[in-house]
């Protein structure tokens, strides 16, 4: 597999993580909206949402930080073959 393909897959995996996390967060927000519309224990729903939404964002941010951090702090070394 070529270096370019692997690089593309690495970026795609980060994008996929964000799609997953944002989907979960959007789902939780939609549940909050339903709870509000139905006047259905909105406090409990907000409580769960306040914890869960930032948590998923934190997980995705941690992965993104590591990915870009590792890319940024690589040393250009021609003797290392394929250290993508």
């Amino acid at each position, binding site marked *: *597999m070529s*270096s370019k393909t*692997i690089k593309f*897959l*690495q970026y795609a*995996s980060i994008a996929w993580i964000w799609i*997953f*996390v944002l989907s*979960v967060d959007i*789902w*939780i927000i939609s*549940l*909050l909206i*339903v*709870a509000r519309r139905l006047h*259905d*224990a909105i406090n*409990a*729903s907000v409580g*769960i*949402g306040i914890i*869960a939404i930032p*948590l*998923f964002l*934190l*997980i995705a941010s*941690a*992965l993104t*930080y*590591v*990915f870009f*951090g*590792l*890319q940024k*702090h*690589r*040393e250009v*070394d021609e003797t*290392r073959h*394929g*250290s*993508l």
Partner: protein
Amino acid sequence: MNGNEIAAKDDALFRSIEYTGKNFYYAVGIFVTVIAFAAFLYLGQIISGLGVTGMAQPVSWGFYIVNFVFFIGISHAGTLISAILRLSKAEWRRPITRMAEVITAIVLAIGGLHPILDLGQPGRIWHLATSGRLQSPLLWDVTSITAYFAASTVYLFLPLIPDIAILRDRGTKPRWLYQFLSWGWQGTPKQHKVLDRTINILMIGVIPIAVSVHTVISYIFAMTVQPGWHSTIFGPYFVVGAIFSGIAALLIVMIVFRRVYHLENYLKEIHFSYLSILLLIMSLLWFYFTFCEYLTTHYGNEPDEMRVFFYKFSGDFAPYFWAMIVCNFIIPVAILSNKKTRKIKGILFASFTVLIGMWLERLIIVVPSLANPRLGYPTGIYIPSITEWALFAGGIAVFMLGFLLFAKFFPLISVWEIQEGRASSIKEVAHRLRSYLPDELEEDDIKKALH
């Protein structure tokens, strides 16, 4: 130094990846057969519905929910234990953490799928997305398990990156996989800093998530007014039980893989001794919670509660209840509190009994309360069907296969953490000792002590 040179000393840790014996294929074949059989029977359930199970009114939850709670409980082995050991800077953690984290990731995936089995038709899961209500503890479960799964997978992956890079540099196949997953790791000081910082943040974050998961699972039961379930101590009781079964599972995996992959040089008696003492403490703690839970019920003497109480103590579920006490308390305490029996064989036996006991505990929590509802129905009967047994066996087979496949592609012991331990542990520990002790510790004293 490149990955090859760094890891040459620890070649034993790569043997399972670079050499595949016949036994590997036999084991995979057996597990795949069990999984295929379970899948075949599950297909029957999809076609015919939940009528193929032993569940009926009033016992509408059976093996699937029992196994769901059981597997999620085992998942506490990993991330929680690993995070606590890392946080407390326990040096003996180094060869253990990876295995613990792998257990978590695999078992969470298996456990998390069990409620879907319980739905009968898996397509009904869509209703969760479209018609779910966040005030229901069932939705709290979905949210917390998804969060724990995401966090523990990331927590498994990040410390794996330097080892993946070693495999990449060794030219291990499939090379593209290791290139893809190593994320350009070269082991530069700045890369280490980035990785360490993130692991530290996750390590702290993952502990409350892990605790919340089993607390929330207990709420499925405790938030109802069902006899035997409506208890304020169910949260911590479930968390204690989860850590208890998690340590037992971790010990079994460590003993088995130590034997299979000849890791005796890394997983030493001392590791088993320390973990088994933790198991002993958890056994005592579990008994304390069990005692509190049943004493309060007995003292209250509420008729509906007492029906469930006697159903467990002297009724149809008495053999399971007393077997649970023997497996979770009498055997582990007898074996692990005695130095002579606290050897690897004894620990393995005690760990197996704990796993059986904890599974029985989940069964005893789920079924008797449903079999004895508040309304004046006759006592329900639950006899699990072959489909439920097969799916239980399938779940265990998926776990074993998952672990085996992980060991085929990645080191089961963190190579870079072992290297790091060799390079800097003694210095770090000496530094820590200097900060604890009242008197100044001279360099010579440390050297003398080491010799």
